[in-house]
């Protein structure tokens, strides 16, 4: 029963959600809102307690054992507690907003901006003409890069059209091929879960 009950629940909810998709009636929408929005919020809220426990246990262990970089663990814990307390004390007031807008948002922006440099280094490696495929990739990428900036049009009038063709015909064809596979794979995985064939995600065979 310990194994069978989750499978029954997965099948029942999965089947109801599938049926719900084909029923536009307000009752059906209500059901979706209850399951997806309300239940999910309740489960998520409880799971956050476990998540915070895991977070603190992980970092406290690191600080206790003075593992490499344990100072970052201390900073992480202090920051979480500080944000939590500032939110609770000020009822998410201007001070809390300032912490978010002037500390967290710029830090996240900084991480995102690093992407430009990482793209450059990854492109440098990927575009080395080691074989025919890599050379083809290098040539195509160079055409697309040049065609996307004004100098491409200046060098040759047909360049933007060529780039458009590369993006909308060969590139799109490859992407759609993968997407069709993804779509079918997703449906097959959902069916395997609903039918109880796939159970790895719940810890059992």
């Amino acid at each position: 029963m310990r194994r069978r009950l989750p499978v029954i629940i997965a099948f029942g909810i999965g089947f109801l959600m599938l049926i719900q998709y084909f029923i536009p009636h307000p009752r059906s929408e209500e059901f979706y809102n209850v399951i997806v929005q309300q239940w999910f919020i309740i489960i998520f809220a409880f799971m956050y307690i476990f998540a915070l426990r895991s977070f603190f246990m992980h970092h406290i262990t690191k600080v206790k054992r003075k593992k490499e970089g344990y100072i970052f663990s201390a900073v992480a814990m202090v920051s979480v507690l500080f944000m939590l307390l500032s939110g609770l004390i000020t009822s998410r007031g201007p001070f809390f907003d300032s912490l978010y807008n002037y500390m967290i948002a710029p830090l996240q922006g900084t991480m995102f901006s690093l992407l430009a440099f990482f793209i450059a280094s990854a492109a440098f490696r990927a575009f080395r003409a080691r074989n025919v495929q890599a050379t083809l990739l290098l040539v195509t990428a160079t055409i697309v890069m040049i065609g996307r900036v004004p100098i491409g049009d200046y060098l040759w009038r047909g360049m933007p059209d060529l780039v458009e063709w590369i993006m909308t015909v060969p590139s799109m064809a490859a992407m759609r091929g993968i997407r069709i596979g993804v779509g079918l794979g997703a449906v097959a995985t959902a069916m395997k879960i609903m039918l109880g064939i796939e159970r790895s995600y719940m810890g059992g065979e």
Partner: protein
Amino acid sequence: MLIGLLFFFGQMPITVVATTDSISLKPPTNLRAMDTPNDHGESITLFWDRPLDISNIEGYQIFREAEDESLHLAGYAPVNKTEYLDQLGLRNNVEYQYSMRSINPEGVVSIFSELPPVVTAYPQWFKKNEVNILIMIIIYLGLVVYFVRIARKGKKIFLRRIPGLDALEEAVGRATEMGKPILYVPGIWPMDEIGTIAAMNILKPVSKKVAQYESRIIVPCIDPIVMNVAQQTVKEGFTEAGRPDRYNQDDVFFLTSAQFAYAAGVNGIMVREKPATNLFLGVFFAESLLLAETGNATGAIQIAGTDRVPQLPFFVAACDYCIMGEELYAASAYLSEDPRLISSIKAQDWGKMAILISLFFGSVFSIFGLRFILSWFSAG
């Protein structure tokens, strides 16, 4: 602004003063009103024919009236339109009377169009326009069940090699030899995403292998529910391998719920712990290259897999092996070698074959103006 205008006009008394302009301006003809099909109600669709001379017309004013609603302006449609969806303040099971008139740029209006029969909005119990999707799902389900039955009878099903998954054994072995951990990143999307479920399905055989090799696996999670599932999955993998004592709950932990903070945290783990193997399997977005490039810099063997097509080039560029799209879903079956799971991949292949055949015939027929195959695949 549009709502403001509608409200403004809606409050105005409706009087029609016959002028030379208003007489020359013709209203739309053949006005039809019907309940919008396949929806939750509270919506009525109007159709009309344009007047023969539209040179001086800017658009059409749509008026509505009910038993407890006086005639008022309910909407506006530009001159080139012949259809309007009215959803503003409509109630189900109430009879509405519609009428329309043309308006020119100077604000002169025509007389009202002929009145169509009264119409009522009501909710439907079935989306008839998506019956094709339902039939395809049933056929596909039939294929899955059929191949599972065949697999149960013991028939051998061929599965092509997937280098990225074949390399998993080697990657775990390498980590053991180097005495370093394996980093498993299950993506950044919650548990309701099929890609995340696939990542959890792969985590089980991976953690089993890790336990067999007596190595260590680190799983930082971005979502609390994913963390709980991952903990249970890794624990089960270690137990099945006969090494429950080696399972450390603190190695499967919650890092943060913010995307780039998570990327920074995982990068920190890569730089400090220097895992011998990095596995990025699940749903990834802009952080994919941040993770893969850092892993590449630390010299780890990297296997990545995602169903997000735009992220695939980044993983291809920065990782040793890349599991593309549907291979991510097939990975669990591939690793477990369970015939029942492998058989579902066969159903996928048949599905793809059916789509390929439909694409071919759909293209050929549409060249000759026959679009019935294409219409079969359109929803809505």
